[in-house]
């Protein structure tokens, strides 16, 4: 393609990404969403805001996060060179803090004193509770009852940080209904409360704003890999639930035409079963949680409950920018089953001494497959979006690692 014809795909402003996105919300919440969007537009262009966020990332998050080459793991990936972007090493243990600190600063700018958030695996909830403690904000986290059980460690972390955790018992009792309940609560408390949304989905301005706050991942990794490997990667791989870590690492590479982008969706028991969370692979466009995007739904438009061993990917929708990138062919979305992800989790643990989050293990499973296709000349960058401490109980049961009679969470 000749230079200058195609506009950059980076940093698309929303509210629409092709036919996806928008702001399909109850009128009761529009004033707050508009206020947030306006405040973000001002902050985005304000060097003082950007510097304050960058300083927080240096002195609190621990940015830049490093990249790590994983040669022993890569032996199982067709011998391709594999580098991990180590978002697991951020304070609070995942990429979620990148977005939360940005939105917490915005909360202060718009003068609100309380924050609420939804959480699936608990990583976004922990990051939000952390930022609330740091900034002295009241904090309430909505988490599906199923997830409070499988991610009990993170529930305790949030409470230790001073947040209230509400166990959501409606509907799927996972991330989808945690978002529904947070919306319901936000309607009643919107005068004092900001909703810190955790993923690059939901109504405008969240998909673009969360992408912007997460794009530090790709900006750092692109420069780091150029230094370490002397070239751009053949493939960038990330797991996709709502899609914030994926869009965060993709953004810097969107205009690099030689770099293939792969989002790995949670396939649960398999995309041909009724237990998966592969919204792009097996969903079709519809409106959920404020935006038009791919979603798992029946013929009538009723949302179908997703299934994944990973609480953070257990969501029947996906961010609208991913839907757009899939349609225009700029990114490809592939499934990885529970079993493939758990095998990849164990493999990285044993070959490299890094225990990844189950979410991130889906990206690793994708990298194993892609590496075998690329062969020894391939260069793959994987976003290791979170660490696996929270998942040790799940892994212990999956791999039968507990002594009989030992206390398990």
């Amino acid at each position: 393609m000749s230079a200058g014809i195609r506009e950059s795909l980076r940093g698309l402003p929303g509210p629409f990404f092709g036919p996806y996105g928008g702001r399909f919300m109850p009128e009761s919440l529009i004033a707050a969403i508009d206020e947030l969007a306006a405040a973000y537009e001002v902050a985005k262009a304000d060097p003082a805001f950007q510097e304050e966020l960058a300083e927080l990332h240096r002195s609190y998050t621990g940015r830049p996060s490093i990249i790590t080459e994983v040669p022993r793991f890569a032996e199982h990936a067709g011998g391709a060179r594999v580098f991990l972007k180590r978002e697991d090493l951020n304070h609070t243990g995942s990429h979620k803090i990148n977005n939360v600190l940005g939105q917490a600063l915005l909360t202060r700018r718009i003068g609100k004193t309380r924050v609420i958030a939804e959480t699936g695996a608990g990583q976004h909830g922990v990051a939000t509770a952390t930022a609330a403690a740091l900034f002295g904000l009241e904090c309430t986290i909505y988490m599906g009852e199923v997830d409070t059980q499988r991610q009990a460690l993170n529930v305790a972390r949030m409470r230790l940080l001073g947040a209230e955790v509400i166990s959501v018992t409606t509907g799927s009792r996972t991330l989808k209904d945690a978002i529904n309940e947070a919306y319901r609560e936000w309607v009643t408390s919107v005068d004092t409360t900001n909703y810190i949304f955790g993923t690059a989905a939901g109504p405008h301005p969240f998909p673009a704003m969360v992408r912007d706050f997460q794009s530090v991942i790709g900006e750092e990794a692109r420069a780091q890999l150029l230094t370490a490997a002397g070239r751009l990667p053949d493939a960038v791989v990330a797991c996709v639930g709502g899609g914030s870590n994926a869009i965060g690492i993709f953004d810097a590479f969107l205009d690099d035409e030689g770099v293939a982008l792969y989002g790995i969706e949670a396939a649960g028991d398999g995309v041909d079963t009724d237990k998966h969370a592969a919204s792009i692979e097996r969903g079709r466009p519809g409106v959920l949680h404020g935006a038009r995007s791919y979603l798992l739904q029946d013929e009538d438009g009723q949302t179908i409950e997703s299934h994944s061993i990973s609480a953070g990917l257990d969501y029947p929708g996906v961010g609208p920018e991913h839907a757009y990138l899939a349609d225009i062919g700029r990114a490809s979305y592939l499934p990885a089953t529970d079993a493939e992800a758990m095998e990849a989790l164990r493999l990285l643990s044993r070959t490299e001494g890094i225990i990844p989050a189950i979410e991130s293990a889906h990206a690793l499973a994708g990298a194993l497959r892609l590496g075998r296709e690329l062969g020894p000349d391939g260069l793959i960058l994987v976003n290791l979006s979170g660490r696996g401490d929270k998942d040790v109980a799940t892994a212990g049961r999956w791999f039968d690692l507990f002594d009989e009679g030992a206390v398990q969470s």
Partner: protein
Amino acid sequence: MSAGASVATAITGSGALVGYLPIGFPDLATSIDAAVALVENGVDALELGLPYTDPVMDGVAIQKATQQAIANGFRVRDVFTAVEAVRSRVDAPVLVMTYWNPVVQYGVARFADALRDAGGAGLITPDITPDSADDWIAESDRTGLDRVFLAAPSSTDARLDDTVSASRGFVYAVSTMGITGARADLDAKARALVARLRAAGATGPDTIAACVGVGISTPDQVAEVLGYADGAIVGSALVSALAQDGVAGVARLASALSQGK
């Protein structure tokens, strides 16, 4: 068949009582009987809810009822069956209250045609606003259906202007900053919101009416609301009455509520 008469025809100077019930709860036939019973007991216009998996503006009473309807096999096409059945038995306008995705999946034009053919008056759409509803505005213009948008205490004056101009039938004034469910004290915000809607042009049935919903459950509250608004919308209380005491219970409550007119 042409669309049923606009809901505006049921809103008179003395004020209208609008009753909400979900379709398919506890089952399709009973939900039709219950809707008919509302009209036979003084309700002037009906708002029939389309059960949806992710009802973010609804409180526990309506959530429970609509999720049960879905679990019992509710299908979107049942809406048209219900509207037609109710219209054949009683003479009151029937609006359908629906979240947006089921309409999108059915096809906005196809949904509008089917609702018009069933004799429905139009739609109440709680999770879209006029600025996100180009396709629905076009289809409601084509079919002559009412389109009731919501106004909230948090709405800016400019948005109230847009909502009043985009709505047809009435404007739904959300009484409080909250989701559906009975409340002991109606918010003073409702009165203030209706005053702002009046200023924005919703002066009454001759232009466009302003009806208040969310939190209304007693005859006294109906009377209070009709003191300043054109209509009072009751939902969760009727759903709870149907759940506890069946069609007879919902008929008794409707009769009591209509004393507030």
